[in-house]
């Protein structure tokens, strides 16, 4: 380019964006409802919280991960009517597992651009339709030439990443297991939880080996479920609620496809996404300025990994913070107070309910028994997906 330009984001958006309602179904290994019905149930709850009607919705954003789970090509089109998208502008966005926080980011730009004043964001996942196991669908995420001939299982990449993370920072499995213990216990207070239980570090270390170092209790379960959020412009928010929660920053980043060419010990993709979101939210010291966090925790080590990517802990420091109780619900930096994916369940995209949804409820002081002890103003939620590749980050605040 001939003319020098200061690259980057200016944030003179058309209008601010608030969240005024959220809803989610229960998360279970197998639900009788179809994907459409699950979406409907989640939307109904969100509309009730916002005291709105489907006719108030102008546009719909749908988030759902691989088509292969539901056994449907163009799954978004199939889910259209259950998602409230009939006779409206309807768009499905997709960044693999990161969709749970990416869909609300897409909802953000629908409203911030001024094209919509009321946008419904709905995420659905029905993993149980895939047989013999949802893992079977993951066979098709690999490079067909370089990876698939080796008959890989998805757990492999996590095990490889976890091992590298443990090796570089010299972290013990015991310290990582604490995350699983914490999140599964937090989930006891979540009505939708699939795997809420009181367990010990020993239980995790003695659970069935899957792909070592990953054991059964290090992993979140496959689930069915759906979640919904309602995002609106300021003039609508004023009419509907006295305490909306504002989206103050969004960020997303996708790293190279060549995952074997990266050093897996640090999630650069989350760090880049967080940088973008923090810059937009004017956050310079996340460890101090963030009151509550919902980092993505499909595996116990992933919460630690992502805390470091989000700048909530220094590299290698997250296990220490966890051990000291800083990330507990009554700690100084509560992480995954919802119970996270490890406790509530992991219906890939629908984890929006325990990430973006939970953060909204925490900041609106509506999390009930799960409400964190400290006073909260600003929080961050994050998801991650693809081949350990994409980071999606959203910062919210109950002060505009």
């Amino acid at each position: 380019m001939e003319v020098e330009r200061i690259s980057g984001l200016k944030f003179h958006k058309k209008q601010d964006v608030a969240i005024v309602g959220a809803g989610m179904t229960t998360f279970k290994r197998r639900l009788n409802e179809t994907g459409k019905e699950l979406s409907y149930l989640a939307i109904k709850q969100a509309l009730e919280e916002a005291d709105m009607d489907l006719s108030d919705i102008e546009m719909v954003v749908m988030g759902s991960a691989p088509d292969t789970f539901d056994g449907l090509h163009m799954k978004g089109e199939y889910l259209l009517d259950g998602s409230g998208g009939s006779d409206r502008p309807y768009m499905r966005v997709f960044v693999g597992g990161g969709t749970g926080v990416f869909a609300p980011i897409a909802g953000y730009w629908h409203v911030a651009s001024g094209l919509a004043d009321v946008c419904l964001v709905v995420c659905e996942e029905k993993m149980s339709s895939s047989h013999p196991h949802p893992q079977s669908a993951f066979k098709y995420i690999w490079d067909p030439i370089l990876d698939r001939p080796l008959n890989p299982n998805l757990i492999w990449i996590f095990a490889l990443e976890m091992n590298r993370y443990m090796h570089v920072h010299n972290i013990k499995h015991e310290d990582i297991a604490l995350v699983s213990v914490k999140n599964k216990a937090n989930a006891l207070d979540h009505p939708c939880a699939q795997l809420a239980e009181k367990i010990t570090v020993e239980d995790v270390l003695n659970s069935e080996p899957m792909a070592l170092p990953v054991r059964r209790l290090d992993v979140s379960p496959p689930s069915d479920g759906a979640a919904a959020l309602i995002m609106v412009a300021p003039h609508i928010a004023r009419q509907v609620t006295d305490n909306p929660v504002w989206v103050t920053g969004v960020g997303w980043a996708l790293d190279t496809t060549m995952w074997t060419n990266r050093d897996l010990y640090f999630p650069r993709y989350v760090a880049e996404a967080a940088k973008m979101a923090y810059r937009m939210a004017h956050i310079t010291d996340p460890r101090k300025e963030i009151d509550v966090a919902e980092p993505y925790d499909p595996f116990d080590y992933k919460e630690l990994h992502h805390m470091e990517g989000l700048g909530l802990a220094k590299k290698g420091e997250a296990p220490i913070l966890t051990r000291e109780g800083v990330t507990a619900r009554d700690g100084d930096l509560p992480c995954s107070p919802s119970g996270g994916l490890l406790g509530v369940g992991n219906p890939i995209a629908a984890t929006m309910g325990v990430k973006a949804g939970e953060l909204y409820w925490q900041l609106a002081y509506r999390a009930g028994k799960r409400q964190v002890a400290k006073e909260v103003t600003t929080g961050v939620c994050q998801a991650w997906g693809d081949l350990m590749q994409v980071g999606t980050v959203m910062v919210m605040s109950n002060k505009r």
Partner: protein
Amino acid sequence: MRVAVVGVGYSGFNANTPDLSWKEITLEAATRAYDDAGINPRKDVDSIVTCAEDIWEGFAIFDEFVPDQLGGVLKPTCTVCADFLFGIATAYMQIKSELADIAVVEAHSKASDILTFGETIKFAMDPIWLREIGSAHPYYFAALEMSQYVNECCITEEQIAEVVVKNKNNALKNSSAPYGSKITVEDVLNSPMVFDPMRKLEIAPRADGAIVFVLANEDVARDITDTPVWVKGVGWWSETSNYDTMSFNAAYTYKAAKMAYKLAGITNPAKEIDIAEVDDRFAFKEFQHIEALQLSKRFETGTLMQEGYFAKDGELPVNVSGGSLGIGNLLEATGGQKALEIVLQLRRLAGRRQVEAETGVAQAWRYIPTASGAVTVFGV
């Protein structure tokens, strides 16, 4: 703050591409687009939007394979599961939200990699209501729609054949169109009736190709190019997911166009639009879409088609590029091919098929079995 197209690039279009992978055709299109815009993707691009459906590609999470060939490593890059024109709408919103100064939209088709095309379309159908019905190739869904539509609107076989003749002849002037041919109405009427009332030549064959657009906000656009093409309006709309409740007269396009025209400030499209590229993957769809875009009135479109109103030298040229009948079905890149032609025409780079135009509209449908579509209005 307006949004402009500041660079376009494409690769193809070919009936098949045995020598290049989807990554390599995308790389070619992206390199050309970045060169056209005069930017360095690693430095200047703020956001990349790719338009892809997993099952067209044969992957469970295709988004994984997107960033490298677009220069998007560690950048905000994402997938929308829809046509290229939905991607344009997404980039438009990102720029309007000030999330990006420069946003890139990509879509490609590697249809030749799919060995079981019919099965793949069938896989998009409701597993309980539709998938098990009959063993015919799912093109029959389009034939069902056609049957109702042509009867309702009194469109004759000859008028439909006229679309095929127009588009395939237009394609002869487009060196990127693999399916151009000098045919007549008689040839079309003699082609086999494969899905009564639909003939073989009325169905667009498949093609490979990739399209990349670089979009920028007004300030940046003024800095880097003398020939910005403005994205005046975007619209997208979905009717319903149930085949039995669809309108069969492209209401999705009518609503999407209303949204796009409103943003563009267009009140009388038939007068204000100079050129249109519409989805013609089944010949009858061109009539549907012309009407839904309000470019002509119902019951008049057939006659106008025969009178050459939509021909290259007609009042309102439609599918001068050769359309999908001449270029091929590019799956989710179909809207990309439509938008590309409009941009090339408005920039006066269309060579032998150049027409006089200042405002153009591109439209695409999400193919069977959907009732979703998007519309973009471009202008200079």
